[in-house]
């Protein structure tokens, strides 16, 4: 039976729910949280971190940690908005 899934891709947090028995049910993430920080990070060992772990290591790895990426969806890398936000060296390598 096809399921209905709802995804709230938020600027700071994202959330996911399915309809179960006519009621929405939020799906927990691996850490047990009902919302997941909208953060993604690429580590030096080319590992991809998503959510809370990515947020926790942001200080150690600022250039390869992306947050509030929702604001940039649909824009090109040369776009002024992108340049303004990441002009100080962030996401230089991507």
């Amino acid at each position, binding site marked *: 039976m096809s399921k209905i899934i709802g995804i709230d891709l938020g600027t700071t947090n994202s959330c996911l729910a399915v309809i179960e028995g*006519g009621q929405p049910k939020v799906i927990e993430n691996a850490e*047990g949280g009902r919302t997941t920080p909208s953060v993604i990070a690429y580590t030096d060992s080319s590992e991809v971190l998503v959510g809370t772990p990515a947020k926790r290591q942001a*200080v150690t790895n600022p250039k390869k940690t992306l947050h509030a990426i929702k604001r940039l969806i649909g824009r090109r890398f040369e776009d002024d908005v992108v340049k303004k936000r990441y002009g100080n060296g962030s996401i230089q390598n991507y």
Partner: protein
Amino acid sequence: MGKSKDKNIVDDADKHVVDQDPLDESSTDNSPQETSVDIIQKLEDKCLRLNAEIDNMHKRHVIDIQKAHKFGLESFIGELLPVIDNLEQALKSFSSTSNSDREGIELTLKSFENVLDKFGIRPINPVDEKFDPQLHEAVSVIANKELADDDVMQVLQRGWEINERIIRPARVIVVKN
């Protein structure tokens, strides 16, 4: 609500068709025979899907109950952690090591930790370990030529986990040269 209403309408329509079947079969036409077979197939299919759905729901509920047992204490313990932090801070404030007050606090802290351990709640104290974002939260970075990149320089606050799930990550300062 609108959804279930729609479903009812569909169900009613199905019933309607089924009710009509005996009438159709009484006629000599061949096509109604096929329709009833179709309907049976459809209903069988629906039955199968519903069965699968119930099975899945049952499995999910079992998992949910297991989780509730395993992690039910999570929020309660989360609120208790500052008490442990305070005891630790109190220990740090003593200048001499041989002090009966200090000993009392030490024993209190220890008995507290023993109780937590009994319920599968364990501290994360990553001294001399590599920084791991799954368990630790980097508060700041510091350069230190004696240590390698991503080593934990200092643990500001111990973290806690319950049955391998993080209640609170350890807050650490990480080396970055």
